[in-house]
């Protein structure tokens, strides 16, 4: 059954598909960024596919793998009536991290896209309220990017400096925090 999802997708959007992957019914299609809205609308509204639920949406930073479009936004779609799934991946370059918003199609995309903006700094064109959802507005940077320093803290509030020094001294022989290279 689900085998046909990729086949149909390939038939309809030959030019927009970068690659497809299929492992024991776990289907993935990597598509071009420009075609995203069109493809997902088609997947949702076609009667024999009916992928009407966006179960999850996330992003991946391939900095250390050195992939050329550095990011990938990943959509997991599920059909409640047909009970099949498909995964859509969209490569996003570092210098222009913008993807079309799916808010018009799936209500849940609103919060999921805000989370991706918060954590990875990928913007969503057409989002009604794109601001941080988990972190605070004062936070600088996007912490799940691989180049965000692991030890970097951005406290909102601290006790006066001498008191902190006293606290740390009392902690005494505690090992120092490991550096990033360890």
């Amino acid at each position, binding site marked *: 059954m689900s085998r046909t999802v990729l086949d149909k997708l390939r038939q309809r959007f030959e030019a927009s598909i970068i690659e497809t992957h299929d492992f024991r019914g776990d289907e993935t299609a990597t598509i071009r960024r420009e075609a995203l809205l069109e493809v997902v609308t088609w997947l949702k509204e076609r009667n024999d596919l009916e992928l009407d639920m966006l179960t999850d949406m996330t992003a991946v930073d391939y900095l250390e793998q050195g992939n050329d479009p550095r990011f990938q936004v990943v959509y997991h779609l599920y059909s409640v009536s047909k009970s099949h799934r498909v995964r859509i991946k969209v490569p996003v370059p570092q210098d222009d991290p913008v993807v079309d918003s799916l808010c018009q199609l799936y209500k849940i995309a609103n919060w999921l896209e805000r989370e991706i903006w918060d954590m990875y700094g990928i913007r969503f064109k057409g989002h009604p309220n794109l601001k941080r959802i988990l*972190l*605070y507005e004062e936070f600088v940077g996007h*912490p799940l990017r691989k180049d*965000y320093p*692991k*030890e*970097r*803290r*951005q*406290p*909102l*509030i*601290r*006790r*006066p400096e*001498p*008191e*902190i020094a006293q*606290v740390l001294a009392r*902690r005494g022989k*505690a090992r120092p*925090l490991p550096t990033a290279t360890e």
Partner: protein
Amino acid sequence: MGLEFATGRLADAVNWARKFSLFQYPFVTACCGMEYMALWGPRYDVARFGAEFPRFSPRQADMLMVVGTVTERQGPVLKRIYEQITEPKWVISFGVCASSGGFYQNYATMPGIDHVIPVDVYIPGCPPRPEAVLDALIMLQEKIQGGRGWSQRQYWLERERERLGLGGEISGSGQRSAT
């Protein structure tokens, strides 16, 4: 029991009364909360130490129990709750996350609540055994009896400065200023 009265200092009597009537405010954020609930039950029975009564308003409490991981975003909230508690007040840091951030070393987690508010007793463990918490409670009672809690010391320091005619601000999260 009568011995403390026999020492003759009013402060000792007051502290004796305080240590057996701790009104706690639980600031429960994470999984340590389950152990914290066990503490209340008949098996471990924190009521034996006079600290069984949780108040869900900090203004009616005098002991803050920070139970679980505190994020940087919660910092101002925690500080504000601490400031609302009536003095003298005491803070117990329950579990490694509250004490030092525990195994979280990342952008979101505060590396110990003592970076924001003063802490009187730390309880290690992930989560701590109820016995460890009872032990900490006894330690806190000893501290209260000796007048060694942070806010008690701040109060004493302020009075001493007044007596010596020094005046001025006390550096401390108690936010008092001797005038």
